[in-house]
């Protein structure tokens, strides 16, 4: 991209907008096929593409000095770091000296098919097939 981003005519932006709409339709239709991996690809892959289009073409990140890109990327990396550090605990339903009663109950109910998607259930864990996964609760800390 150029530092003379003003040089594009308005038609350029309309074109980008049209691309965005096409991608929006794809991401919307994708999940209707009800194939899990395809849903993930269309939903999140396309969200990434759309975000890229907006950031580059509308926000003109390339026209700003390089450090702007680095700053934004660094923030994203730190958020990934947060996820990586917290997820191993938060995604468990029990651990050293603690359990999360509601999670374990919901997991059981979900596996038994008792819970539909309605509003009034407790949060549920989907059965951790690999068995070592538990959610957590500091509640039972001795």
């Amino acid at each position, binding site marked *: 991209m150029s530092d003379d981003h003003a040089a*594009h005519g308005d038609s350029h*932006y309309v074109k980008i907008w049209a691309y965005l709409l096409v991608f*929006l339709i794809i991401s919307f239709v994708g999940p209707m096929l009800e194939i899990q991996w395809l849903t993930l690809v269309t939903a999140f892959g396309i969200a990434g593409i759309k975000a890229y289009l907006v950031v580059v073409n509308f926000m003109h990140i390339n026209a700003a000095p390089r450090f702007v890109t680095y700053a934004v990327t660094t923030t994203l990396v730190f958020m990934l770091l947060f*996820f990586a550090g917290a997820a191993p605990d938060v995604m468990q339903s029990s651990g050293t000296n603690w359990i999360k009663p509601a999670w374990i109950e919901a997991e059981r109910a*979900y596996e038994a098919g008792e819970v539909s998607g309605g*509003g009034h*259930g*407790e949060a549920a864990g989907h059965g951790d097939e690999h068995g070592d996964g538990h959610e957590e609760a500091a509640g039972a800390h001795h």
Partner: protein
Amino acid sequence: MSRPIATTRSMAGIPTARLAVWWIIASEIAIFGGVLGSYLMHRLAHGIWADYAANTNEWLGLTNTFILLTSSLAAVLAHQAAERGDGKRAANLLYATCAGGLAFLCVKAYEWNYEISHGMTITSNTFWSFYYTAAGIHALHVIAGCILMLFVAQTAKRNEELHRVEIIGVYWHFVDVVWIFLFPLLYIAK
């Protein structure tokens, strides 16, 4: 009062206001990163949450995405008009962007009203808590953006402070990008 000389310098090779808005965006990424990261941890751990997510209305989500993308187009066209020195057109396009924001909020209000009246409230379970919190924080950003945009349009109309049109535009696009990720996270991924 007039600006300090400090504001007019640009040692880093980027106008001060544009530099500042990028830093604001970086800090906003951390805010949304916190709430969406926490949401994702729960979402990935719970198969049942996909069933909850099925209760959201993806047609309304689709409409809102369309509205925000289109308002972003208006914002970037306003920036182009401002670059050409056409303050009048820039102001009008900003008003159009604002109207998009309003339409977004109206759809949101209808959607929340429907969901709450059908028993899916913020206290129903953790999924719905995250749903209302994440979308609510985003909606607050939409409201803030609209209000700021009205101020910017006011000055742009008089052909003053035209550089502000780009700044508010960049912020608005960021709000748009956040929604681009909220849409699959809350609506379509099942």
